[in-house]
């Protein structure tokens, strides 16, 4: 006679043993996206990885000697060379006949700006490395200075809003397109609002022998000026408005995206954050910038084909927004 035990899906999921490569005790701010990304990415990679970390918040808050949150081999050299250090580690592993995967963590400064050259070199030489960029859209570690990833019109300490300026004057660099233009096997964007999407994409990248790139949108409550308990909500709104499109590219071509079923106006996202507060002033220039940002979101939605009108039968969470295309469970209807 067999005993039948019942367990609901949520409990079952919570009881799954998980590999913890990045553990508690670090000094990240409450609501930090980067800390969640560090933990979730390593849950998906498992223990057989070596991490190269660019200088930045993640490196600083996780490794104050003699303590470390990392339970996988971890190395930090300088700000702009994580991709090159990873290339060297990978070459050594190859020479020694070891097959651990090398994973890079870099912020937007270390990826879009100062580490851009070493990243390009690593991709071109086709090293077997997964590069994870946690993108909090400014130099947060040094106190919120503008980077080439800072969105248009956002205020930072080096692109402040004032009488003569509406925050950052330039556009956010389209890093994933630039990366994909190296014709690497796999490049994707995702957001800390969608942990299962991060894990799925990490697993996919891990299975590829070659350079892969994951660009993860990651709120910084301090730098963006929102409550720390709103990080996930803010990150989700960036996706739902079309400002941060979630896409997948193979060999330079888009092969998938996360469709948006209920597209929200960009103001829903912007109004939660102090860095965009100057756009809500009674000022024609502010209104013009709001229109500009809405136009950018609309452009993303058309460019990447993000609009989805069909209902989502699999949405059990009640969020009624997003499930990725080509889901394994797309035709599954319990």
């Amino acid at each position: 006679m067999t005993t039948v035990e019942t367990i609901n899906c949520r409990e079952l999921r919570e009881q799954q043993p998980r590999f913890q490569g990045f553990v508690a005790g670090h000094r990240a701010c409450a609501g930090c996206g980067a800390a969640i990304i560090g933990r979730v990415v390593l849950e998906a990679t498992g223990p057989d990885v070596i991490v190269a970390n660019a200088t930045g918040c993640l490196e600083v808050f996780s490794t104050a000697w003699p303590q470390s949150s990392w339970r996988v081999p971890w190395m930090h050299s300088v700000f702009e060379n994580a991709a090159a250090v990873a290339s060297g580690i990978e070459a050594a592993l190859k020479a020694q006949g070891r097959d651990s995967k090398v994973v890079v963590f870099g912020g937007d400064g270390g990826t879009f700006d100062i580490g851009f050259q070493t990243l390009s070199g690593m991709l071109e030489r086709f090293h077997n490395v997964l590069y994870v960029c946690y993108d909090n859209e400014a130099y947060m570690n040094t106190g919120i200075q503008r980077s080439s990833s800072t969105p248009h019109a956002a205020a930072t300490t080096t692109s402040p809003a004032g009488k003569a300026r509406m925050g950052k004057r330039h556009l956010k660099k389209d890093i994933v397109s630039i990366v994909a233009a190296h014709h690497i096997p796999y490049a994707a964007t995702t957001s800390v609002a969608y942990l299962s999407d991060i894990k799925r994409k990490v697993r996919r990248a891990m299975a590829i022998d070659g350079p892969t790139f994951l660009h993860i949108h990651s709120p910084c409550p301090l730098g963006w000026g929102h409550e720390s308990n709103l990080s996930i909500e803010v990150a989700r709104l960036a996706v739902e408005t079309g400002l941060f499109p979630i896409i997948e590219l193979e060999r330079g071509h888009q092969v998938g995206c996360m469709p948006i079923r209920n597209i929200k106006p960009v103001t829903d996202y912007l109004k939660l954050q102090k860095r965009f507060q100057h756009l809500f002033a009674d000022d024609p220039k502010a209104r013009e910038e709001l229109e500009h940002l809405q136009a950018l979101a609309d452009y993303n939605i058309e460019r990447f084909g993000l609009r989805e009108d069909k209902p989502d039968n699999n949405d059990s969470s009640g969020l009624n927004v997003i499930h990725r295309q080509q889901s394994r469970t797309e035709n599954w209807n319990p």
Partner: protein
Amino acid sequence: MTEALEGSQAIARTVAACKPQVVAAYPITPQTHIVENISKLVADGKFNCEYISVESEFSAASVVLGAAAAGSRAYTATASQGILLMSEVLYDIAGLRIPLVLTCANRAVSAPISIWNDHQDSMAVRDAGWIQLYCADNQEAVDTTVQAFRIAEQLEIPVMVCVDGFTLTHTLEPIDLPSQEVVDQFLPPFKFSRPLNTASPISVGTLVSPDYYTEVRYQHQQAMRGALAVIEQCREEWRALIGRDSGGLLEIHDDADAKIGLLVIGSVTGTFLEARELFTDLPATRLIRLRSFRPFPVTALQQACTGLETLIVVERAFSPGGGGIVGNETKAALSDAKNNTLNIINVAMGLGGRDMTLDTYRLLIEKVVNGELQPGFSIFDVDPNKLAPTA
């Protein structure tokens, strides 16, 4: 077996005999022939390594850093602007105590741009925490390359082997390349004490607070002082193994009557040795050749200067607004010595590839004898007709 080899070719073949698993480099004159020769050895199947053609010297240094941290013997080479571009990583490599060998094909630094030889490039990174060994000829460059891996791996301090660009790198000389058996005997396989390994994870390059920083720096200084003995020990073991005296901290060519000493560094040694023999009308000199600039061999230099009245420090770099780099270090070293009454004349010459000939030696000694060169620093051989008009 002695062969006629270009310096770069000899260095490349020696590097291959040392069997680094990873080589990363970026082309720059006059280093290029070294990495071209290594690439060819790899292409011909004579040297099995991961050869990474990187997109800059900055990445060359970073790649070999990552490779060595993961437990592979690794090698790179550069010069001039390349070493300056690497400099941030050079400090990091040394601070992390990662064993590596880098050949610097010494060349002047811009501006004005010059592809020719002097020592401004390696001198600019003298504080990076690397051991710096300056070679007098290509035979020594070969021997030093093998010794460098041994020194680096024993001490976990990176070693820079400095060879004069063109003068050595592009010159054919009869060279005895050590056999593979000799190299294998002298250089055991690299077994790094702290490799990145998923079986026993460690965190490397963590943030260090003021509570620990001083102690890390202190240990680096201690290790560098300890390197003095290891460099000498390698010289002894090399001599025992191969029968050739090559290496050590410094080299002395004495003359019983010498009251004038010459302290030189690099390939000018050969020229000045010949001039000493040729110009019998000039006063006798003691030629001291500094091989190890980092660590600076204070005691050995003090002993080498015993009995001298005048010491001429000849160097191929300087610190504008300061003076000679080797000169100032020499003065500091000798100020602690009993013989601190020594007159120290410091000249920079051979800048940006200007030839240092037999006649240069004659002119230099004559000026010292005639009292035209006083203690202190000056730049030798300045032609007033070539100076730009001043406002």
